[in-house]
């Protein structure tokens, strides 16, 4: 509980720092919105031509995209700082976190809020709402609960994967490029339903780097498409379990890395 209090104190400090640059905030959000408008434009052009992609209509695709976006926004706002980890390690500034008697991860993450993630959140909420109306979905309370759980577990999966990538810098010093692999896989599952890919690749993003659980599998339930999975339909339900397992793995790797850490200053 105390750590949580400290986290919020740190975050409030960083927000105070940030509010000095208001123009930055607006251009940043516009940047995010343009980026996503272009991405959705790609999908829109294709679906406009071909009416659907592997039986996924434009609204299905928007739903898939926005569900990913919602989970991602939590990562983007609160955990984006993980991407800067290697700079702390390389420059030796990571040592500062050892001095204070507070959990190192909390200190590190509490350094910064990425306000641009608000743009992601905005797009996610608007996208889901538009898709929900156009698909004439009418979820029961149970489905709404599943939706919320899916968003949370989706973001946990992304956070855990990025956390693992960040921890790699304990061993390799440089780790920023490993983020590129996850980001690329992310952008593939965000834009396309994974059933357009071959079996090998689908197994890869389900069992090895389980990004498919972020949006694809949960959305099958939310869009009543579980029949695609045939006898593998249990996959659609296990995103929360996958996310918890990944989180445990990530914390383990982080703790081992921390123990090994010796400052690059010496």
């Amino acid at each position, binding site marked *: 509980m105390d750590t949580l209090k400290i986290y919020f104190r740190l975050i409030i400090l960083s927000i105070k720092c940030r509010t000095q640059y208001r123009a930055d905030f607006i251009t940043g959000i516009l940047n995010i919105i343009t980026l996503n408008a272009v991405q959705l434009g790609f999908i829109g*052009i294709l679906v406009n031509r071909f009416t659907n992609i592997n039986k996924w209509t434009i609204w299905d695709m928007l739903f898939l995209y926005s569900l990913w976006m919602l989970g991602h926004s939590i990562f983007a706002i609160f955990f984006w700082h993980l991407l800067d980890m290697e700079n702390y390690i390389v420059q030796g500034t990571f040592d500062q976190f050892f001095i204070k008697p507070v959990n190192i991860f909390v200190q590190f993450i509490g350094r910064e809020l990425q306000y641009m993630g608000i743009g992601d959140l905005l797009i996610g909420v608007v996208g889901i709402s538009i898709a929900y109306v156009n698909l004439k979905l009418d979820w029961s309370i149970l489905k709404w609960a599943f939706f919320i759980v899916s968003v949370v577990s989706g973001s946990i999966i992304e956070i855990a994967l990025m956390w693992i990538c960040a921890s790699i810098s304990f061993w390799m010093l440089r780790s920023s490029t490993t983020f590129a692999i996850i980001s690329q896989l992310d952008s593939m599952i965000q834009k396309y339903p994974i059933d357009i890919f071959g079996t090998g690749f689908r197994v890869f993003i389900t069992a090895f780097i389980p990004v498919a659980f972020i949006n694809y599998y949960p959305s099958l339930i939310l869009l009543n498409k579980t029949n695609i999975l045939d006898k593998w339909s249990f996959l659609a339900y296990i995103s929360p379990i996958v996310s918890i397992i990944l989180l445990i793995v990530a914390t383990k790797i982080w703790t081992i890395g921390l123990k090994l850490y010796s400052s690059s200053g010496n």
Partner: protein
Amino acid sequence: MKIFWSFSRQAFYNMVMYRFDFWVRRIVLLFVMYGVYCLWNILYTQNAKELEVNLNQIITYGILGVALQASLITAMGPQRYIASQIRMGSIDTDLVKPIDFHLHMLARNFGETAFRFITATIPTLIIGFIFLGFELPCDLFNGFAFAFSIALGYLIQFSLNFILGILAIVSVDIKNISWAYISLVSFFSGDMIPLWLFPTALRSIAEIMPFKCIFYIPISIYIGNFSRIMVIKEVLFQLIWCIVLLLLGRIFWICAYSRIKIQGG
């Protein structure tokens, strides 16, 4: 000219240093290529007529787009170098170099692009050729026209980035608009979706902008989707934009240069 090549060579060797980075980027490239391949395959089986070209052509288009984008990366252009030099206040070291700044940026960028072309674009194309059905140009004319066209495309992309870089000198923070810029360029240059699949209104906008010179024109020539008259017309279009943008970059630079001197006192 000798100085130009020495700067190019230096930039080339600079790229060799990051080995881990290098391999990861190659893996990412394979993923991108695979994604594009799957997408066009599915769309082809769904409705072949809407594609307007055959399956091999569209897959060749997609793979070439991915592979070329690996060397002509919009994000890694001269604007990044200029912005960081400005931020660290070391742009003056570039001004005392024994080479014109505009040429220096071109030399640097050319060296980096050549490195990426040899180590990323060519291997990707070879893998695409062996496994995914990437095709060679249908005849010699198209092959040569493609080579000429992609060279122009490169110069156009360089000029656009250079102009953006100059904006960084004139105190615009380009970091915050970079993603929007990159994605707009990639959209209108047709590197993911060829312009002929665009809705009519959007297409007519894209047709007059310079961005289609970077990927759409060279790649369409490569897959033989233009008649010979069209090829000549489109290359002329590129040539005009190329000259305009190079001149524009020059003018921007001259204006910015006088500003730097004032700031120096």
